[in-house]
């Protein structure tokens, strides 16, 4: 390390030249006054650009945004992925909404219908067309629940009442 230090002696002497670079005479006479005047005037907020403030407060965000400046392709890819995300969100939201509606539409067992008659139709080979909307499932509870069809529940129409969101008179 000592030898390396000696190797840099010449360079260190050359670097002394930097110490002789001085600002114009009298430069520091007004420096603090200008700083205080700017503080008083509240000039600081104007002098500091948004980008610089972002860089100091949230450097990760500034670096992220800088990628967009330098690589326009990334902007397109990012925008496309955002759009895809939005579409997927809408699709999944609709699906989950439909599933919720289905769950809510399931009615309790009609009072007059004997359990044996329901059990008799819950065969493994059953299809929805055979049973009028009963879905075959490994779930012993839900498999017996009739599901709504597009034209309402055959035989249970009187149990349902259409919801109306019109204001009451």
């Amino acid at each position, binding site marked *: 390390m000592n030898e390396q230090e000696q*190797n840099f002696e010449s*360079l*260190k002497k*050359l*670097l002394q030249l930097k*110490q*002789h670079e001085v600002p114009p005479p009298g430069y520091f006479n007004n420096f603090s006054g200008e*700083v205080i005047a700017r503080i008083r005037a509240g000039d*600081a907020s104007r002098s500091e650009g948004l980008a610089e403030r972002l860089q100091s407060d949230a450097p990760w965000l500034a670096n992220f945004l800088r990628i967009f400046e330098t690589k326009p392709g990334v902007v397109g890819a990012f925008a496309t992925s955002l759009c895809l995300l939005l579409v997927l969100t809408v699709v999944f939201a609709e699906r989950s909404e439909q599933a919720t509606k289905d769950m809510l539409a399931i009615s309790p067992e009609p009072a007059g219908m004997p359990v044996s008659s329901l059990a008799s139709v819950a065969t493994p080979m059953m299809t929805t067309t055979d049973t009028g909307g009963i879905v075959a499932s490994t779930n012993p509870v839900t498999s017996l629940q009739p599901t709504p069809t597009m034209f309402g529940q055959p035989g249970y129409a009187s149990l349902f009442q259409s919801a109306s969101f019109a204001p009451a008179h």
Partner: protein
Amino acid sequence: MNMLMSEAAPIADANSPTAMLEGDLVKRAQRGDLKAYDELVKRYQERIYATIYHMTSNHEDANDIAQDAFIKAYQALKSFKGGSSFYTWLYRIAVNKTINFLKQRKNKHHFSLNDLDFNTEHNPDLVALISEKTPLRDVGLTELQKKLNEALFKLSEPHRMVVVLHDVQGQSHEEIAEVMDCNIGTVRSRLFYARQQLQGFLAEYVKS
């Protein structure tokens, strides 16, 4: 004028800002006393300016960044808890501002070098460099200054900062580590690498 030697003015009055200790001035400035802050600015303006100037090699930029650094420090003064000295804390703000500025500028840079002072021609080391030991004996000090600044600018910001703080400003490894928020080993390795690089860039002016 040596920019490394910047001390407070002689004590005139025990209650005057110039006679106060740094800690007292900071406390007063934290309460909004601009006279106290003015004194703090006066104490450190030369060193802060010099560091920024050596990093940017541009007087106007150094002036703007130094002023901004002092203003930002004043605005953030309430958050200063005294974990480090005010000087180190202020330096850190100035260093970060300078590095951010240089990153934004990147390739759009131009030099605006300050003049060399009168003592340059009487510095025996420099005289020796431009007369006997340098292969280019007819090189002038001004040209050497330009070459030196160009070589410094080829270094990355962290490497240039370490050289400036250590070899130009005379700060210790420990102080630099605190200012740059890294460990001493990093400072040492950066300094060694930066010197090697500079030696290569300035091979015709430096005897290796």
